[in-house]
């Protein structure tokens, strides 16, 4: 037996109330104080959080809101009209696409990142140096669609030339997952579910739950990190001050502390 049956209801205010509630919910966002929306690649998470703190001390009254995701997801959000003031990309291609579309201005390289090998703290596959990588039974890498994945592919191409094609083929055969989020890859290594992973140096530097095994400089890459002002942002002057701060002495010092390679 049905207890509630959908009967015709002669009560009209309901749809109006619903619509009203929806409209109110939509408007609520507008009322807060102006904030600088910074869209940054997830590999910048820890460094940018430290930069935010320092910037807000230097600029009382300025409120920086950081939004982290993969560079390509951020690019998509900006293309679809998300209200960003600043875009920081882990890869030149996505930045260049937005510049070509006229959506980002004054882009520049603010730091460089490199790749590194990480293992769980107990290092179950006993990987002491990069050459030992084929010992890993489960290796995680980034998918080639994301910057870290294309850099990893480059490192493997170089290692094929230096350490032999057999080495590179063996390493590729150990890959159990190609993922798009470096932090997720790191978490799986920290949990001990993978024997090794190739991630950014900055990701390894930001945690003490994984062990770092350096990649020889001859095989490694220099990943450009770019920052620029987004067209149509609400606070262009503050956006320029933020990018200036990131490229200035204080900003560069913070970036270096987080594992980035900086010029000064």
């Amino acid at each position: 037996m049905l207890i509630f049956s959908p009967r015709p209801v002669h009560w009209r205010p309901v749809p109006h109330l619903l619509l009203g509630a929806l409209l109110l919910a939509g408007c609520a966002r507008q009322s807060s104080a102006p904030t600088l929306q910074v869209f940054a690649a997830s590999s910048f998470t820890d460094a940018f959080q430290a930069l935010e703190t320092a910037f807000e001390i230097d600029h009382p009254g300025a409120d920086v809101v950081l939004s982290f995701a993969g560079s390509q997801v951020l690019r998509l959000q900006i293309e679809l009209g998300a209200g960003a003031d600043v875009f920081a990309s882990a890869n030149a291609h996505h930045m260049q696409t937005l510049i070509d579309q006229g959506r980002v201005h004054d882009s520049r390289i603010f730091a460089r990142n490199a790749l590194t090998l990480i293992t769980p703290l107990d290092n179950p596959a006993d990987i002491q140096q990069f050459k030992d990588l084929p010992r890993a039974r489960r290796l995680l890498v980034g998918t080639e669609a994301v910057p870290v994945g294309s850099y990893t592919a480059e490192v493997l191409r170089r290692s094929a030339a230096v350490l032999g094609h057999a080495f590179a083929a063996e390493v590729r055969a150990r890959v159990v997952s190609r993922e798009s989020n470096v932090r997720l890859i790191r978490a799986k290594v920290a949990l001990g579910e993978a024997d090794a992973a190739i991630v950014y140096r900055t990701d390894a530097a930001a945690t003490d739950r994984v062990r770092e095994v350096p990649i020889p400089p001859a095989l490694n890459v220099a990943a450009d990190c770019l920052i620029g002002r987004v067209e149509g942002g609400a606070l262009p002057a503050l956006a320029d001050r933020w990018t200036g701060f990131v490229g200035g002495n204080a900003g560069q010092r913070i970036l270096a502390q987080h594992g980035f390679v900086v010029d000064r």
Partner: protein
Amino acid sequence: MSAGLTRRWPTLLVALPMLFLLALPVLALLLSSSPTDLAAAVDHPLFLPALSLSARTSLISLAIVLLAGTPLAWWLAAAPPGRSRTVELLVDLPMVIPPAVLGIALLQAFGRGGLMGPVLMGLDLQIPFTTSAVILAQVVVSAPFYIQSAAAAFRRVDPDLLLVARTLGESRTGAFLRVSLPMALPGMVGGAALAWARSLGEFGATLLFAGSLSGTTQTMPLAIYTALESDVRVALALALVLGGAAVLVLVALRAVPGLWARQRSRGGPT
């Protein structure tokens, strides 16, 4: 019945906002892809391995959910309310917990460092990053949908009918198979369709527990996510293909109880 219609339009007005919210994104998805985009998606190297993996894993998951979930649903329907309520809460939990967290929980249950880790290591079984992990994640997230719906269907079976069947000489199993099961079937099929759809769309737990490797663990939702990183249009078209396939199967499943009923009524009086 024009009188019925005029009395119904206020109901429609109240129902409209929800309908609008549900239909608009689907419409936008439909409009987003041109036939060339769809062709490009079907030609995409990730497409076929992902579609076949999704089809295989979601069907195996459904079989496991039906086989292992039906007894639990039956027990829930028959158990005294006090006891069943606690178990029901447990069954509902995977619906409430975010799938990504479920993925971590699965790692901590079946991973190397997990609760079952030593046992699985002893058997030389590795679950994370394998197709089994995909299936396991799908079973955990989808089973509640089937179990709830099947339990509700079993509860609606009149106990007097079972009593009559027993007095007519049926065993307990016979009464279950010949009375409860056919009567609860529409509800079970509905729950199975929901569970299958949930498995097909499963993303978060799979990404964490199984990872993403084309042909092994990369199901359609994961392929769509990966495509999103390189080409949005391919991702949208892939999503459209997945949605289309799902609609076909769901319509077919909805039709099954009707066909079943017609066949039974043709077979003789019930």
